């Protein structure tokens, strides 16, 4: 178990950085602190998993860093851009051009074919897809013979592979996944996670994923643990066993404290 600080600013470039990030709901008596001065770096070409029990703030952290949600104080940077000062329109553009998303519930458009779903972010931007890159992504997720199908004609695993391809297709600076394997059986889940890891290893992408599954977390290069809106620990080179052990230990600690 390592205890080095999370924000290791000495190595490689940072894709996204949260500094003293706080998110507070409500006021006075009913005030709930979802994030309490969280600081974290997400380095380029790294696969990070965010873990923590329900209500720990792991999803909120991801939403804030991904520009999907507003925060109360602190700062978030994607590359050189400070999110706090952006208006909705600029934020939307940033998400479109710099960020890729994978959701738990696939979230494909049922009226579009698999290929159209994959190129949707580029279509929104009115850009042509980078043909070579697109081919590579499609081959990687193994969807070549399914491109003309609509989501309803695909299995859950295939749908999520389309979603992975969509997130990768525009070659974003960073990809966020919100429980991307939550709705999949273990085999399909393993496939999707494999693609995510490959995209980091082979394509040099940056991936941040929220999960509660130790097996999923084991695919990541690093795991960040959250509890009560704070980062409590992190782990490099996790395996399912080490993560599970940590969680158990953490749970026990949580119960006794």
């Amino acid at each position, binding site marked *: 178990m390592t205890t080095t600080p999370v924000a290791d600013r000495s190595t490689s470039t940072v894709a996204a950085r949260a500094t003293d990030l706080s998110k507070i709901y409500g006021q006075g008596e009913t005030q709930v602190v979802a994030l309490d001065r969280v600081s974290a770096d997400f380095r380029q070409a790294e696969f990070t998993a965010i873990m923590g029990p329900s209500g720990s703030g792991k999803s909120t952290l991801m*939403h804030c860093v991904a520009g*999907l*949600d507003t925060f109360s104080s602190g700062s978030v940077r994607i590359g050189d851009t400070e999110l706090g000062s952006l208006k*909705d*329109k600029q934020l*939307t*553009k940033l*998400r*479109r*051009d710099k960020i*890729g*998303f994978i*959701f738990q*519930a696939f*979230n494909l*458009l*049922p*009226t*579009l074919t698999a290929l159209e779903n994959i190129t*949707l*972010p580029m*279509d*929104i*931007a*009115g850009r042509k897809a980078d043909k070579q890159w697109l081919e590579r992504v499609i081959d990687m997720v193994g969807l070549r013979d399914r491109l003309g199908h609509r989501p309803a004609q695909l299995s859950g695993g295939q749908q999520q592979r389309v979603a992975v391809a*969509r997130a990768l297709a525009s070659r974003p600076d960073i990809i966020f996944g919100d429980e991307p394997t939550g709705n999949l059986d273990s085999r399909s889940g393993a496939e999707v996670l494999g693609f995510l890891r490959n995209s980091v290893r082979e394509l040099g992408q940056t991936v941040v994923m929220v999960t509660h599954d130790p097996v999923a977390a084991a695919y990541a290069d690093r795991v960040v643990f959250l509890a009560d809106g704070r980062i409590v620990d992190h782990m490099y080179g996790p395996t399912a066993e080490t993560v599970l052990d940590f969680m158990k230990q953490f749970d026990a600690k949580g119960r006794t404290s």
Partner: protein
Amino acid sequence: MFRTALRNVFAHKARLLMTVLAVMLGVAFVSGTLVFTNTISDAYQNSSAKGFDRVDVAVSAKSQEDEGNTISKTPELTQAMLDKSAKVPGAASAVGVVNGFTAIADKDGKLIGGGFQSQGGNYWGDKDARYPLKSGSAPHGANQVAIDAKTAERAGYKVGDKVRLSVNGPVLTPTISGIFTTDDGNVAAGGSLALYDTATAQKLFGKPGTYDEIDVKAASGTSQTALKAGLDNALGTKLVETTTGKKLADDQAEQISASMSGLKQGLLVFAGIALFVGTFIIANTFTMLVAQRTKELALLRAVGASRRQVTRSVLVEAFVVGVVAGVTGLVAGIGIGAGLRSLMNTLGATVPDGPLVITPGTVATALAVGVVITMLAAWLPGRRAAKIPPVAAMSSVHAKATTKSLVLRNTLGALFSAAGVATVLAATTMDGSDGQGPMGLGAVLLIIGVFILTPLLSRPLIAAAAPVLRIFGISGKLARQNSVRNPRRTAATASALMIGLTLITGMTVMAGSLQKSIDKMASSAIKADYVVSMANGNELSPDVDKKLNATGGVTSTSPLRNVYSRIDGTGESLTGVNGAAIAQLTDLKVDTGTFKVGGTHVVVDKDTAKSHGWKAGSAFTAHYEDGKSSRLKVSGVYEGNDLIQGILLDKNVVTPHMTDPGDMRVLVKTADGASATTKDKLEKALGTNPAIKVQSKQDLSDDIAKMFTLMLNMLYGLLAMAVIVAVLGVINTLAMSVFERSQEIGMLRAIGLDRKGIKRMVRLESLVISLFGGVLGIGLGVFFGWAAGELLGTKMATYELVLPWARMAVFLLLAATVGVLAALWPARRAARLNMLTAIKSE
């Protein structure tokens, strides 16, 4: 189950809002119509009943049947009869009534009122109980007149003023001796009444020494029936008939309600259309609510609710919606009824005062219409709800409707449409009135067929819009795909708009074509520069023709004089014309023979010739009202039209046989042709008579155009309700779509579609659906307009189809506007969705 249904209504308040509004509008239209017509009908009946208070028995001439070739004269009510009536036992007094037409000009020389309700009459003695004087005194002699207080007030006339009047020719300028009040129904309805002393009235109205009616008042203690019997006894029953005041009042009441029921039915038809359109929205809403509640309903089934209970829970929901819509609609309808009356008053069509009439029938109808319509429309969705298998509660997504049902639907729709088109086409080859029935049947079949087919039609038609939508990038693409995603819903929404636009376009095509053909007929048949006629369609005095003929610059004139005669034992109307000039004044197509009118030579139109079996060269005998006759020879057969038809003969042949000749029109040809100065000259020659219209061909065309425009505008106004309901439908559908697709919208926002793009997507979907309905409606409307025209064409030689391209473009624009307006709120809602909650919600 009842409680579940009620909870559901409250849970979906916002989504049911449009449904309630749609039903409410229809109900408001229905109850507004009922309240308005009942109120007006009651007011008229009250006012006319008051008018009969002073009459216990009315004596009138009995019209006599013509026999063979002799024309029977209508008996006259003489002074002797009046005197005799007054002396009948039980009679308190008898008043002789003289009626006629009198137009009153205001201070600018313009006719007061429309001309149709400009009445004249006699003031009986020095104090006529019928007409209490407000100021001044009774009229005496040819130079005095009394006018009603409403007219005096409108035109600003006072006792002592000179007023310009016209009866049937020369202008009179008597002095106002008195101003009276009256409860006469026509005056109450915006007409005018001028009264002269009895002798003057008899002279002016061409009835010297005679009366139109004798009103007898009973002495106290004598009943109306007893007095009637006494009068019958004294006057005999051969020449006159007697009617009790009560019967007169009853007859009038009946007549008023009969004329009101026509208006009522007309308005109710349009209310029905609005309601029909509303049913689409109701069905759409309930289908959607059921689909959204699939899991919930399946759960109910799983825990033991029967199919019937599930259906009933949906129907109970519909019942509650119907009651709410019925009650609010009734309230709105009462408002509309009251509003319409005051609107009519401000527009000058004076409606007698009276309380607003809300009968129990109106209330019951409003509620019944609201409830029945809503429940009927919700019945199918309710049945579908019952078919949800209990297992659907467990699976995440219930199996969607299969394409099989669409196959059945398309087959059915194609059959209906084909039958409809075939019937309409067959009807167009039939002759005039024979084709009306099949045409109507075919139209109904075709509309039903197209309704059923709209889901199928939506795909190719909306695909055709793809190139345009491509301009809008991804928003356009998504909008197009979203609009064909649920073809049934899109179809129902578009159909609602289609109905209104079908009717609007059909009417416009027909009206435009008819106007053109009538216009062509009128102007092509006449070579005269001017046509002179009475404003109210009455006959002109022969003096008018004489005066016009004597006016400088006039080269020739001809009256169109009405002559009643008997030919071969049947009644026939002849037209007396100036034989020497008629060929220069008209341009009638001659079928056979020559166009020669003069002496014993006459021309006959094709229809009349056919019915009598005449050809050029045939001869016949016409018997006149004075018992004399003349032998006439058909010199030619011509093609008649609306203005000139029947037997044309020289006026000099018939005028000597007539006691009171009158002309429908006078045709005038001038040396300089139609111009403002010529018209002015002609009007001056007639003493600038307020009741006489001098119209050039252009004026006639304008008149026809004005009539059609007025009619079309009224129809547009009435059909606007159906369009408004259709707009509610589009809003409803979009709101439902946005709600259903909130997860997708959230995802689109997350991956980078900005608010503007989302708004545009919803707006374009709305536009596509509306234009789809618009194109269908305009297409069907043109088809029906064409078909109806084909039928009319068999009766009108000059009929020609006129496609109002500009109007059609406006209608399409209207459909587009409907789309844009309907999308305002749903698009805003979609753009404001919180994307995190949208993505998470399943």
